[in-house]
């Protein structure tokens, strides 16, 4: 499991490869916070290569969303598979986040 961070135009795109769970959530959080500290404002997390997410992974997404908003930025999510969509629906986090079907749509939505 790993996270790759790259810049697409003005947007910082993070790919989550593997699981986002209690054992690695801090790594994701730190990577995004480092970019936020550098002054980045637009963030997209892409889950096309993600297996499963647990409650601590969801908690980190909620936390990042708040911190990015506090700095006047925006966070979007993209490419949730059906199982991940169900997870977001069960927890109603689909109402808290802006979720796009594809990376392209998410990038266009900023």
């Amino acid at each position, binding site marked *: 499991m790993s996270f790759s961070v790259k810049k697409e135009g003005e947007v910082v795109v993070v790919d989550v490869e593997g699981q986002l*769970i209690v*054992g690695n959530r801090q790594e994701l959080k730190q990577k995004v916070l480092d970019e936020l500290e550098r002054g980045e404002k637009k963030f997209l997390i892409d889950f096309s290569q993600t297996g499963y997410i647990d*409650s601590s992974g969801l908690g*980190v997404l*909620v936390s990042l969303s708040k911190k990015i908003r506090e700095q006047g930025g925006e966070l979007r999510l993209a490419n949730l598979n059906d199982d991940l969509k169900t*997870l977001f629906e069960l927890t109603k*986090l689909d109402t*808290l986040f802006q979720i796009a079907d594809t990376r392209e749509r998410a990038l266009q939505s900023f």
Partner: protein
Amino acid sequence: MPRTERHGISPDGRVRVVDVEIPNDVRYIERVVELVRRECRVMAYGERQLMLNVPVALTEALSNAILRGNGDDPAKHVHVHAEVGAERLVVEVGDEGAGFDLEASLIDPTTPENLGREDGRGLFLMRKLMDRVERLAAPRGSVVRMTLHRE
């Protein structure tokens, strides 16, 4: 490496068994999840159960045991016993702590006032993703048993 690890098939051949004891470290969670998920795949559990119900609920139970039950104490261990049958999966996760009261942890993380919280979704997800979640009396420590009927 896990301290002990056994896989097998029950004497009547109808249930696949995973029995593993791991150090109290969240880095072992994925490995245990894979062991149990592999047996569920052999027993032809539904794709959603393999990709969502089993891995997420088991991850929650393991992280509760490691971080809450065992208080993140590296000297402690977590014991996992899973029986994967054609009808249902029964998985027990045991820690060496005092455990927690499942009934007292009935926070609904989906209400508007709780939706923005970072925590409080673990037990909720276990209950949503498994058919039954119960706490068992154990001679030392605490055991959570989860049951999921095969789709």
